[in-house]
C-alpha cells in the first residue's frame, strides 16, 4: 500500500474535562472509503471536525499528504481547500440559489470565472439528479435533494479528501437511498472518503475499511466484511446486535 493520504496519530480532543477522543490512530489511503461506526457520542463527528480543523486538537497530529494540518503555523483556510465536508444538517446557504451555493467557493476561493464555475456546477448537478433545481433556493428542496446539493457543493472544489458526517441521519427513511447512491457513485469514481454513518448495510457494501469507535477509542478496525460479519471485540458485537435490532 502506498503512503496514506490522511494520517492521524495519537489524536486527542477534550471539551473541558470531558475526554472525547483518546489517542486515535487512523490511516486513509488514496481512493479508499473508510466508514466510522459507533453509537452517538462515541466521537465519530468530533474526529471528522478535527480533520477539517473546525475543532482545535488537544494532542496528536493529522497529516494530509505531506503537510501537517495540525501545525498552527499552517493557514487553516489553505488546508481546508483540500478537504470537502458534508454535514448531517446540510447547512446550505439559505440566501443563495443552489447554483450559487455550489459556485461560491470555486469563484471566491479558487478564482474560477463565473461562466466556467456555473458550467461545471450544472454538470455536477445533472450527475446528482438535480439539473432542474439549479436556480431554486434550498428551502424549496426536499431533505434528500438538499443533501445532494450539499454534496455537489463539497465536490465543486475538487477536494483530495471528502468527509461525510452522518449525512443521512436527518433524512426521512425513503430519502436515504438517493443520497447513498451518490456516495456509491463517488467511490466508483475513485474519490477518497472518510465517513461517519449509521447505515450498516451501506457500510458493508461500499466501505473498504470499517472502524468501530466507542468512548473516543477505535476499538476495532478492519475490512467491512471482518468488522461487520465476524467482529473480534465484544463491544463491537454488542453494538452491532443493537444496530441490527433497530433496522
Amino acid at each position, binding site marked *: 500500500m502506498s503512503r496514506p493520504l490522511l494520517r492521524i496519530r495519537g489524536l486527542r480532543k477534550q471539551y473541558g474535562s470531558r475526554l472525547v477522543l483518546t489517542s486515535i490512530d487512523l490511516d486513509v489511503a488514496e481512493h479508499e472509503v473508510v466508514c466510522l461506526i459507533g453509537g452517538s457520542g462515541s466521537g465519530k463527528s468530533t474526529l471528522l471536525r478535527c480533520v*477539517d480543523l*473546525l475543532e482545535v486538537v488537544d494532542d496528536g497530529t493529522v497529516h494530509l499528504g505531506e503537510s501537517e494540518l495540525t501545525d498552527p503555523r499552517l493557514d*487553516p*483556510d*489553505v488546508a*481546508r*481547500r483540500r*478537504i*470537502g*465536508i458534508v*454535514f448531517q*444538517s446540510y*447547512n*446550505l*446557504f*439559505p*440566501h443563495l440559489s443552489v447554483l450559487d451555493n455550489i459556485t*461560491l*467557493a470555486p469563484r*471566491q*476561493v*479558487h478564482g474560477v470565472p463565473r461562466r466556467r464555475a456555473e458550467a461545471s456546477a450544472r454538470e455536477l448537478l445533472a450527475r*446528482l*439528479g438535480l*439539473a*432542474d*433545481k439549479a436556480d431554486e433556493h434550498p*428551502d424549496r428542496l*426536499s*431533505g434528500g*435533494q438538499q443533501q*445532494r446539493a450539499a454534496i455537489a*457543493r*463539497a465536490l465543486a*472544489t475538487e477536494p483530495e479528501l471528502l468527509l461525510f458526517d452522518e449525512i443521512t441521519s436527518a433524512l426521512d427513511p425513503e430519502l436515504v*437511498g*438517493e443520497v447513498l*447512491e*451518490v456516495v456509491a457513485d463517488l467511490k466508483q469514481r475513485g474519490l477518497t472518503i472518510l465517513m461517519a454513518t449509521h447505515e450498516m448495510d451501506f457500510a458493508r457494501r461500499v466501505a473498504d475499511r470499517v472502524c468501530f469507535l466507542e468512548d473516543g477509542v477505535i476499538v476495532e478496525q478492519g475490512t467491512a466484511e471482518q468488522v461487520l460479519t465476524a467482529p473480534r471485540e465484544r463491544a463491537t458485537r454488542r453494538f452491532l446486535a443493537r444496530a441490527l435490532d433497530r433496522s
Partner: protein
Amino acid sequence: MDLTKTAESPAPDDTYRPSEHELERQRFRRSRRRRHTWISALCTVVALVALGAAAVASPGWERVDSLFLDGAELRAAFPELLRGFWLNIQMFLVAEVLILVLGLLIALVRVTRAPGLQPLRLAATVYVDVFRGVPTLLLVFLVGFGLPALQLQGTPSEPWVLGVIALVLSYAAYVAEVFRAGLNSVHPAQRNAARALGLNERQTLRHVVLPQAVRNVVPPLLNDFIALQKDTALVAVLGPLEALRAAQIKADYDFNYTPYLGAALLFIAVTIPLTRFADRLQRRAARRTWAETGR
C-alpha cells in the same frame, strides 16, 4: 434508483366535485361569516356614537373644542406646518443614510477578530456604550449649542445640520447594536460551512454571514427608523422651522393648541404606514424562521 425523480405534488384531479355535505358546510360557514361581520360593524358604530356623544355632552367640551379643534386655526396654520414637516422628512432621510452606514461599520468593527483592529474595536465599544446611555435630547443640546461655541473652522452653523449630527450620533449606536445582534443571529453552522469550503473570515462575512444578518434585522431596523422619524422633532429646540417649531410659534401667537394637533397628525400620517409595513415584514420573517426550523 432513479435520481431525477422529484417529489412533486399530485396532479389535480379534474373529475372531483364537492359532495352535497361539503356544499352544505360551506353555505353554513358563509352565512356565519356574514352574521359576524354585521354584528361587529353594528357594535363598532354604537360604541363610536356613544363615545362621541359622551365627549360632546361633557362639561368641558366647549373649551376643548375651541382650544384644540379649531378648524379655522388649523387651516391657517397648515401651510406653515407642512413646510416645516418637509424639513423633518429631509432631516430623517439624510440622517437615516448616515446612520445605516455608520451603524454597520461599527458593528463590523466589533465582530471582526483581526488583532490590528483592537484600538478601533475598543473605540467602537466605548462609542456604543456612551451614546446609547445619553438621552437624545441632551445630545441635541450638546451638539447644537456646544459645537458652534467652540468656534472651530468648518463647523456647520445651520441648526438643522447640527440637529442631524446629534441624531446620527445617538441612533448609530442603537443601529450598530441591531446589526451586531443580526450578525450574531446567523447560525454558527453557516459560518462553519463557509470556512470548511475554504472561504477566509472576510469572504465568509461578506458572502454568507452579512447577507443573512441584514435579512434578519430589517424589521427591527424599521422600528428604529419610525422612532427616528418622530425624534426629528427634538431638533425644534435648536430653532429651525420644522413642524413642531412652526406649530409652537403659531400656538403661542394665537393662544390655541390646534397647530400642535396638526403637527401630530402629520407625524402620524407617516408613522402609521411605516409601522404597518414593519409589522408585515416581521410577520414574514417569523413565517420564514418557522419554515426553516420546521424541517
